[in-house]
Structure formats: C-alpha cells, structure tokens
C-alpha cells in the first residue's frame, strides 16, 4: 500500500505495510535516524516526535494513522522555542550518552510551546514519560526553566 505522510514539512510517499509503526518508517524507510528506539511499548519516550505539535510516541502510531498529520522529528524541529531549547541544552551540557535526548528535546519543546512558565510539577508531569538511564533529569529540568526564562525575555 502507498501512504502519503507529511514529515518535516515534506510530503513523502511510502510504499509499506500500513501497520508499521511510524518509528520504523522514519528510521528504516525514510532513513532519518535521530528518532530512537528504546522500548517499543510507549514506556521510554526515545521515539518521541511531534504530531501536529503534540509530543507523540512514534512506536505507537501506525503509518496509516499518521496520514493527514504534520509530523516533526528532531531533524526538522525549528523555530524560536526549539532553537532556545537546543542552545540551552548545549550550554548546560545536558546529555551524557545522548541516546534519549532527541526525545527529551522534543518533549521539552512541546511543553514550552504550551506552557511558557512551567513549574517543577509541570515539568515532572510532562517529562515523566521520557526515560534517561544516564540520569540527566537534573539538567533537563534546569534546561527547561532556563529556556522558559529566555523565551520570556
């Protein structure tokens, strides 16, 4: 079957099984590898992408269901919020191994887009689905606060 999806602003035609999770379509078929596999069952957030701006676990969304949406991956995310988050992430040296960070950045960008002044509780709630085995939670939280501060200024 062929499916047309909108990924990072580009219309892309995929000739695949419509049941394939978007994660594998992005990685294996489209060939963008910033979106990571960590669990396959919505438990880790490594595969987070934006679907119409909402942080979404791409391991849980089939290609068929993604048709008609606007999908953004770490490679395509842009705009003021994303740039600020990425800059702050670098300045605070958030990553350790870095594997979870595409998902962390996208989850943080979605949060900051909806809530310009998140509290610790808002952050915990928004970020609890994104595991980091290296444990960069301290800096992620600090990074979100710092990005919010800069975006407000």
């Amino acid at each position, binding site marked *: 079957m062929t499916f047309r999806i909108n990924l990072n602003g580009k219309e892309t035609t995929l000739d695949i099984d419509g049941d394939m999770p978007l994660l594998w379509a992005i*990685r294996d078929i489209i060939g963008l590898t910033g979106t990571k596999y960590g669990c396959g069952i919505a438990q880790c957030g490594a595969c987070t992408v934006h679907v119409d701006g909402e942080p979404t676990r791409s391991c849980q969304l089939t290609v068929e269901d993604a048709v008609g949406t606007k999908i953004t991956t770490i490679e395509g995310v842009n705009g003021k919020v994303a740039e600020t988050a990425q800059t702050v992430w670098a300045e605070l040296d958030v990553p350790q191994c870095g594997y979870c*960070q595409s998902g962390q950045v996208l989850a943080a960008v979605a949060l900051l887009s909806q809530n310009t002044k998140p509290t610790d509780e808002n952050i*915990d709630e928004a970020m609890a689905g994104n595991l980091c085995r290296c444990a960069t939670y301290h*800096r992620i939280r600090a990074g979100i606060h710092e990005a919010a501060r800069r975006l407000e200024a």
Partner: protein
Amino acid sequence: MLHQIEKFAEQSKTVPAAAIDSVISNASRRGVLKGLGGFVLALHLLPAGRAGAFPAYETFGPGMPNGVVNDPHIFVAIAPDGEVTIIAHRSEMGTGSRTTLPMVIADEMEADWDRVTVKQAEGDEPKYGNQDTDGSRSLRHHIQPAREIGAAMRHMLKQAAAKQWGVKIDEVEAVGHQVIHKSLGSRVGYGDLAEAAMALKTPPRDVLQFKDEKEFRYIGKGTVPIVDLHDITTGKAVYGSDVRLPGTRVAVIARPPVVGATIKSIDDSAAKAIAGVETIMHLPITPLGSKFKPLGGVAVIAENTWAAIQGRDALKIEWDRGEHGTFETRAYEAELRASTAEPGTSVRNQGNADAALKDAAKVLTYEYYQPHMAHAPMEPPTALANYADGKCEIWAPVQSPYVARTDTAEYLGMDAKDVTVNVTLLGGAFGRKSKADFATEAAFLAKQVGGPVRVQWTREDDIRHSYYHTSSVERIDIGLDSDKRVTAWRHRSAAPSFLSTFTEDKGVQHEIEIGMGLENLPYEISNVSAEQCPAFAHTRVGWFRSVSNIPRAFAVQSATAELAHELGRDQKEFLLEIIGPPRILDAKTAGLPGKFWNQYEPEKEFPFETGRLSGVVRLVAQKAGWGKSLPKGEALGIAAHRSFVSYIAMVVHAKVEKGIVRVPEVHVAVDCGFAANPERVRSQMQGACVFGMTAALYSGISFDNGEVQESNFHDYEMVRADNFPELVHTYIVPHSFEVHATGVGEPGVPPFAPALANAIFNATGRRIRNLPIGDQLKA
C-alpha cells in the same frame, strides 16, 4: 582487562585468578566560552625549562593487554591548514572520555580546541594500546600518556620551527597553535609545520617540557563541552543502529529462553508469511561459559526492522530447557543464604574472628540480599556488519572493540586482520557492551548472507538475555564484648561469579570480585575475617556499573549503621570511629594471603588511605548539615565506600510517604585525585545517584523455570523525572596533578543504596536488608 580473565580461564580450569572489569570513566564540558577557545591565548608564553614538572608515576595501564601507547604519530594529525585531528581510542558511553582525553592532548600540545576534530579509533590495540573502556580507568590510565602525547607533539613542532629558522629549540616556544621565536617574535602556524614535525621521531620523555598546572587552558577547568553535543541535540549523532549501508537487511533473533536451551521443534511458516521477511537462519546454541559468543537461536532476516520483529515474534519454537531450566529466584535466594550459614573459603584472616565471635558477649548477624540486575542501557544492543571478499566490517556500540574484533574473528574462523570494528557512540552501556555478542551475531549473519546485516535487539531481548549483575547474599557477623566494644567482624559472601561466563563454573569468585569490598574492609577492628561461600551461576553473569562493590557497600555500610543503632550511636560519628585514625591499609596486617587486589593498581601510587575515606565522610556530613532536624517521615542517612581507587561519601535525604520513597536531596563528597574535568565528575555523580536509586528501588531480575520474568520498562522500572534524587550536590576534594587522577564513572553508585537504606531507617525505623526496596515499605 577482560583478556586477563580469559587468559586465566585458558590456563587454569581450577583456581580463580585474573581479571576483568566494568563500565565507564571520567569526563568533559562547558562551552569553550566563546572567545576563550580562540586567541586570548596568543600572548601567554610558557616559561622555558620546566622539564620534570610532571614526574612519571606508575599505573596498571601498561599491564593491560597491549598496554599503553603514547606516540603522537598515532594519536595526532595536523593538516596543512592547521586543523588538528586527535584520536579517541576509548569508547564514549556518556562519561565524556572521548572529549576529555583528546582535550588533555590538545592542552598539552598548545592546540586551539576550536581547531581540533576528534576521530574515533577502530578496534586496534596493537596500534592504540588497550581499549577496554571499563573499570573507571580511562582517565586513571590515560591522563599521563595523553599529556605525554601532547608534550611530545609540542616538542616536535618546536623542533620543526627551530630547524626552519636555523635556531636552537630553546629559542622558540609553542603557544596557541603556533610556534614563536621568543626574541625575534617570528611566528609560524602549526599547519605550516605539520609535515616537517610529523616526519620527526618521537622525542624521549626526559626531554619533554610539561605544562605547569597553572598553564592549563582546558584541563581541570570544566569549560570544554562534550564533542558530540551539537549532534546529539539535533539528532545527527551516530549510534549503533544509525549506520546505513545500501541493501542492509535487519535481523531479529529468537534466543534460547534459558542459556543453553536447545530447539526441540520449530515452525517458522507464520514468520515466513510476513511481508518483508526474507530468510530464517540458525545460529549455533552455546552453553554457559562460552564467554561472549552469541547465545544462538533463530534469526529472522527481513527488509526492515518492523518486519523482522514481527517475523521473530511469529516463530513457534519448542525449547528443551536443559540444565538451567529449573532456575528459580526465591529458591536460589534460599540457597545463597544457606551457603553463607556455613564457613566458606577464607580470603582474609586478621586475628581470629571465629574465636572472638565464640567469646563475644553478644553476636549481631545481618544478612543482605541483592537479586540479579540488567544494565538496560537506553540503546539496546545492536550492530551492523558487512561481509565481502573475505573481509568483515562491523559498526557497533562496543566498550572493547578489539575484543569484539578478535572474538568475532575466532567465531567466524577468520583472521583478525580481516575483521574491522568501527566504534559508534554508545547509547549507554554500563558494562553490557563490553560483551559484544551482538556484534558477533551481526558478523555471523552478514557472512551467511554475504552482505550487510544489522542485528537489532528489542528491549525484551535486552532484559531477557543480558550478562546480569551478580545476585548475592552478604552475611555479616559482629561480635561485641561486655563493654559493647566491637571485637570481631566476619563477612561471608555468596555470589555467582562472572568467571562462570568464561570457564567451567567452580562456584568461586574471582579476585576482582573479592577485591571489591570483601577483602579490604577499612575498619579498625582486631579480628576481621572474610570468606567466600559457594554459589553457582544459572544465567550469564557479567559486570555491571560498579560490579561487586554494589552489594558489598550495601552490606557493610548498612551493617555499620545497624551496629551504630544497636550501640545507641550516631551513624556518622560511629562510621568515623570505626574507620579509625588515618593510616594506609596494609595487606599483611589485614591478614591477607597476598596483596590487596586494588584494581591492579600499584599500592605505592594508589594506596588505600583511610584518612581520605574519613575525609569525605566529614566533608559530606558538614555540607549536608548532618544532625539537622527534619519533619516526621524524613531523615538523612550516610554511607562511604572506596572503589575504583576513588573515595566517595554520600548523605541521602529520604522522605517516606505511604510507602513511597522520595529523595529530595543528595550530598556527595568525591576524592578522585586530580579532577581533569570537574564538570563531568559532577554529571557522573548526578548519574550515579539516579542509577543507584533505580537499583535500590526497582531493579530485580527474577527467574522462573530458568526464564527471566521481566521484559521491558513496565516491569523492569527505571527512576523517572517524577521521582528522582532532586538535588545532587557534589563536592570535589581539590588536588593537584600529583594526587593521581582516579575514576568517577562507577564509584558514585555503591554508596547510594546503603545511604538511602540508612536514611529510611532513620525516617521510619524500618531496616531494608533485601533489595530492591519495591513495595516493602507499603506493607
């Protein structure tokens, strides 16, 4: 170091001896603050004639397989435009060593970090020296060679300039990416000198002029960010499954549910019917004790990962479980407890603990249990391999690329020179990726297929087929006389050894495992004994961040607090008292048959100084405000442990509400000698606290009918952003370069669980002796 265990396994099938190790190392940070990386430097001249500012000291580095290489011709390349490439020969799994070691070279050679590119070495130890990135030793073993490489390179650049100008070498100085004539002021850039400098022989160490610590630009500053930072935050960083070759096939493998289980029957028709599935291939089954050989099983090879996963899940296989098919966790725990009820084999005998216990007015007995654990790095094992024209090339996130290469060559019956192992970034590792069974699987399948194959482990595969952290019972018997003085301390340990992964299992621990807190109790007690009691493995046991230090620190530091409570003493005061006055632990006085294992580091250079252990205890207690009053249900707990020749003490603030444990704050005091990258020391301590909290609260792999019962993050849980040690304050004991740099990747983990358990006790009166804590406090 793992080659040493192997060597042992080869030489002797009866006695334990030899070596391996675990995870990680030190690291880097912080934006070369714009400008600082550039040419604030240019005017800063190095005073001449300070050769010997950095006298050489001995480490175990040269004793590692293939030793240490410190030749700039191997590690540094300078292009005609002045761009410098520095080789990182250690694997990067989040500790920052891929940044820190090249940064040390750059600093010592006076290169501008903004003009340095770091290139990852392939697995080639004869060329680069040992590459086992584990044992928290990248900095410990390589900071000296890195300085030597840098200083030698700087010397060669100066020689080349002096020759070009026809002057003496001591008339010139290398500063900020160029060589300057000191009186004439003429300058020549590194790029223009590159060819001539590289053609020179490496100068002997005794002519090298090392920088004075005050002259370091990057070392010890914490201002250099990790080199992959930008790529990581923009999704461009390349991990194990991100390398793409045209025509790559993806394999997902059904492995035996019990190690060594064989196939009774298989029906692969449903798998073959799945769109995209191309081939089904068998890998030979291996029994326990096969080192890092693949477990074997049935590979489903498909066009893409999704098809391969579906295909694998559709296989119908009936297994003959074999000899470990009845392994069951509860029964095993009982077996380990029974084992420590009997005298074991003595590994330390100071005074006469048995007699003192017999004579004691009171004997306290505490038993601590720890189940198996899986590393669960965020990136599950994965590797890409290609095979063409008799050569095999692998891309994989491996901690020991040379071992991966030689093991794979052996498995495939190839010559190691025909196998290449390229190291990608590691999406976490924690010891799991020292064992490159996954890379060998990919190579085997690539050879069968005759083209590129990527093996992808699912999270379920990772949790169910790990090289598990040992499970253990640590039993401590303490004798008190009628004046309540401690007269005896006897520690028995029953834990299956990682030796069982290498050779026939004799139920005995390796000297490395014994060395991690069993033989080296740093307490001032006259009668101390340590014994290892038999324990046999029924699954693959391997090293896991901090290894046997985890259960040992948990047992010893919990028992110390229990004893303090029994004696009506303050935990911290009693800990300091029982450590006793500052002294260097002496193996003979301690009643050891030989030397302390001491990470194989020479005791002369890396002695066990009890004063440094007390030092971090005092520091952390003071910083944490030990003794302050807290609301009901909250309390502080303390623990200290020396591992990987670093000294760490922690105060954990626990808060227990309806059985749920929270940790609002942790204070960590670290004495790791000279801190090359204080920023990464801090990030490693933050990481260790969260990792330690996951282990203490949740981590337990259980077996039934030989099969692992957990499968993914819903039942093998991790600490998340909604309940983690919220504030981690790290205090680094300041030292100059003379106090040798040690490691920080692992030693932060062991004190966490006992400090937490001690805090929980102070908060609730409930004593945790069995890990993980799980729901114990809810009942």
